[in-house]
């Protein structure tokens, strides 16, 4: 399986998200993450969709099928394009005075910061590429992760 990032500009109308979601489910394609927001033009939304495919042919079909939807304006495949991408992670970890120094050292390395601290837990915010976020999560797991939420990837060329 390979992962590909698609940036899809769509008409900002009700039901568009559901058209895209139902296209993926009806044709058996896998979405690994999805981020949606308005663009500079409020009539247009941008969806960053990360898909997992087993072969190139399926990626081609996904792009063609997306393009067929009337409300889809453009589909850009970032796979072979130079681009930057980021994801935001919020993670709640166990936070004791004993581990404070080690956790802070780790967060320094990944440019993370503590945005809330209550009793023996802390909520950490990190923005980075998916690989970095994955590494940080692995490192944080030794302290005990209580909860996490991620935005899904956004990208720009």
């Amino acid at each position, binding site marked *: 399986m390979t992962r590909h990032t698609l940036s899809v500009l*769509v*008409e900002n109308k009700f*039901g568009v998200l*559901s*058209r895209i979601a*139902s*296209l993926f489910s*009806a044709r058996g394609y896998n979405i690994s993450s999805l981020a949606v927001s308005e663009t500079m033009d409020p009539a247009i939304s941008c969806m960053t969709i990360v898909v997992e495919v087993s072969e190139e*042919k399926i990626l*081609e*079909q996904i792009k*063609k*099928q997306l*393009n*067929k939807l*009337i*409300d*889809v*304006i453009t589909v850009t495949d970032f796979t072979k394009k130079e681009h930057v991408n980021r994801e935001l992670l919020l993670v709640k970890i166990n936070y004791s005075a004993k581990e404070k120094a080690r956790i802070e050292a780790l967060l320094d390395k990944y440019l993370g910061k503590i945005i809330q601290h209550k009793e023996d837990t802390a909520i950490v915010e990190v923005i980075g590429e998916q690989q970095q976020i994955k590494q940080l999560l692995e490192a944080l797991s030794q302290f005990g992760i209580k909860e996490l939420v991620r935005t899904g990837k956004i990208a720009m060329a």
Partner: protein
Amino acid sequence: MKLSGAQILIECLKREGVELLIGYPGGQVLPIFDKLYDCDIRFILPRHEQAAAHAADGYARATGKVGVCLATSGPGATNLTTGIANAYMDSIPMVAITGQVKSHLIGNDAFQEADVTGITRPITKHNYLVKDVRELARIIREAFYIASTGRPGPVLIDIPSDIQLQETEFIWPESVELRSYKPTYFGHPGQIKKAVKLISGAKKPLLYIGGGVISSGAAPEIKILAEKIQAPVTWTLMGIGGFPATHKLGLGMLGMHGTAYANHAIMSADVIIAIGARFDDRVTGRIDAFAPGAKVIHIDIDPASISKNVKVDIPIVGDVKNIVGEMLEQMKKTPNTAEWLKDIEALKKKYPLKYGKDGDKIKPQYVVEQIYQATKGEAIITTEVGQNQMWAAQWYQYNHPRSFISSGGLGTMGFGFPAAMGAKLGCSDKVVFDIAGDGSIQMNIQELATCVCNKINVKVAILNNGYLGMVRQWQELFYKKRYSHTCITGPDFVKLAESYGAVGIRATKREEVRPAIEKALSTDNTVFIDFRVEPEENVFPMVPAGEAINRMIEGLA
């Protein structure tokens, strides 16, 4: 000028050139029906909403115009869905209009409420829920535009009943502006050049045509191309009529129940020119064994159809009529196919279509042949789905586009009779024959009332074998003759037809077949002919599911 939503709808339909509406009233379309009372668009009331959708579909296939159907919210709309899905699978231009509960009740599980735009999302080319009466005219204009351009398809407009009553200034949008929808009509010149070069050097070229040839109106260009490059032509079920069946370059239909010579020919072709066809699994059989030695040129208006199933060497996206026309212009050197055509002749001699003709029992194939002869090949034939459909495809020779109307992609039993109704409404000067099975006809048999009441004189040939024949055939061949629930009884079709005010005829012996057809043709009424055919007759040749298409089971001589 201020108009209500219902008035705007009717005004827009008129301006779109709609001359026929097929619909069923209900609580949430009352304002529309009130305005229809004074409207001069022809209105047909079917006896089931599913038939409304199939009739609109049949009308569209027979005329090339957009078919329009109308139903109320909830069950009215859900009954349309089979017909909408059917039109979607076969790329038929249709606009379906449904009533919806009042705007403020949407989402409240109101009486006769269903999320119709949600339900129809995967079976429409596009759909709309109208939330503001000021948007209605634009939406209707877009719906007709989307339905009839590019790769055609059904578009649904869901209109809450309060929107039908609200008034606004009526402004007819002169043009449609959709920044996200721009179908490609002209092929890429470089690709066309490459295709022409490949064809010029081919030894065994073959044209494989589909429904796109019919919807694009490209049949004349296809004939010129085939004759110019002297290539044989085979067609899909949807492509029937795209090339004259009686032409010497015609190979008939290919695929699961195609002619053996078409299947053998495509397997040995060196260049396949696929035109408005989509390499459906019923055509290709086992995909990795399909046409191994061939280079493939694929011309289609839908980029998503290209390289979906079969790897294509030269894709050309655009309208097939334009592209084939352009290819003809550029084709200076034509291939020498004399040897190839000799091979084809030999295949035709070796593997003719055949069926046993002994005794005075009625063979279903014989019935179809006799309908062909009695109508001199000039009728519009619709079919149900199953054996009747395959025999109708095999044994009638179609020389004109839009003369064969059948549910290809979805395979909907109960399609043929309402589709025949729609075709007859669109082409009143044509004889319209539905070739049916005793199973399928019972799925929309209530339309007898619609036909009689509106004097839509269609003829229905029921190939009555007492079985759901195609499934029985599979059970015979692949499930050890365990005929699980495929033996089916029906009414006395003659009496049933008579009870509706139509004419019923029965034929039980071979010599009664032709007179029955002649009588039906000379009767100025809807006619059911109950042909009591050989019960366990099979459709041959047949490619078993998952086999390569040249590995056919042949019929008995």
